[in-house]
C-alpha cells in the first residue's frame, strides 16, 4: 500500500535527489540532524564511558553522524513515508552512535564466553528462599543448556543472556552480524522452551 508523503518528507527527498547546491545544502542539513541524534545518544551513554574525554565523545558523535549520513543516502529509496522523514533519519544517527559506544565500552575487555560463566551463575541463583517451582525450572534450564544446545548456541546464549555482552560487540568478535546472532539466540531460546514444555515445566508458547 502506497502512503502519501507529507510535504516536509517530499521536500527532503526532492532536495537530496537534486544536484548542485540544492543537493549539497540538503546533505548539510541532513548531517546536522544526524549529528543532533548522535550527540543525544552520546550524552545518554556518557555515564557508562568514564574513561572517555569530552573531545573523544564528540569525535564519536561526528563519526557516527558521518557513517549514518552514508547509510541514509544509500537507503533513500527504502523510505516509504510510514513515518516522518526526520524520524526515519534519527534512527540511523542513534543506531550508529549506539553501536560505536557499545564497542568502546567493551574495548580491550575479554568477552566472557566460557560455559563456566553459566555454572557460576547457576550456583549463585540457588538461594534457599527461592520458590520450589522456580528452582526446579532453573535446574532444568541449566541442564537443558548443557544437553540440548549446540556449542555455538551455548556460547551465544551465555554471552548475551547471562553475561550481558552487547550483541554488536559479540557480532564483531565472532565475525557475524547482529541479525544472524539474534537468530542463533532465538533458536536456542526456542529449543529450551520446547524442551521445558515437553517435560511439563512450562506452557506451550505461541511461536513454536
Amino acid at each position, binding site marked *: 500500500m502506497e502512503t502519501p508523503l507529507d510535504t516536509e518528507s517530499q521536500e527532503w527527498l526532492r532536495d537530496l535527489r537534486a544536484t548542485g547546491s540544492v543537493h549539497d545544502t540538503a546533505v548539510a542539513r541532513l548531517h546536522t540532524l544526524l549529528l543532533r541524534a548522535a550527540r543525544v545518544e552520546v550524552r545518554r551513554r556518557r555515564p557508562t564511558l568514564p574513561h572517555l574525554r569530552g573531545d573523544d565523545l564528540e569525535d564519536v558523535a561526528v563519526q557516527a553522524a558521518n557513517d549514518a549520513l552514508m547509510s541514509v543516502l544509500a537507503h533513500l529509496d527504502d523510505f516509504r513515508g510510514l513515518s516522518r522523514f526526520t524520524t526515519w533519519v534519527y534512527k540511523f544517527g542513534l543506531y550508529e552512535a549506539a553501536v560505536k559506544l557499545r564497542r568502546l565500552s567493551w574495548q580491550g575487555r575479554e568477552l566472557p564466553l566460557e560455559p563456566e560463566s553459566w555454572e557460576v551463575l547457576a550456583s549463585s*541463583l540457588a538461594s534457599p528462599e527461592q520458590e520450589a517451582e522456580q528452582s526446579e525450572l532453573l535446574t532444568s534450564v541449566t541442564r537443558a543448556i548443557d544437553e540440548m544446545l549446540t556449542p555455538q548456541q551455548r556460547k551465544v546464549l551465555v554471552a548475551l543472556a547471562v553475561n550481558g555482552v552487547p550483541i554488536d560487540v559479540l557480532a564483531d568478535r565472532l565475525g557475524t552480524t547482529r541479525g544472524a546472532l539474534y537468530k542463533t539466540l*532465538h533458536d536456542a531460546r526456542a529449543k529450551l*522452551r520446547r524442551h*521445558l514444555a515437553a517435560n511439563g515445566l512450562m506452557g506451550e508458547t505461541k511461536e513454536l
Partner: protein
Amino acid sequence: MERPDPKQVLGRLLGPGEREVGCDECFAELDRYVELELAGADANAAVPGLRAHLSGCPACREDYESLRALVGGGHAS
C-alpha cells in the same frame, strides 16, 4: 557480588516466547512503530512481533528507547 534476580535471568534465557521479528526488521519498522505509539495508536497490532522483539533484544530496546525519547521528548514506556 549482588545476587541476580532469578526471574530476570530466566526471562533473558528463555526470551519473550511469542512470535517476534528479527533485528533487521525491527530496525526497518522502528520509526513507524514509535510514531504510532506517540500518536496513541495500536503500534503492536500494526507491527506484529516488534514489541516481543524489544523485550528479547536489549540492543534494539535501547535503540527504541532512544528514538522514542528523541522524537517524543519523553520516556519510553
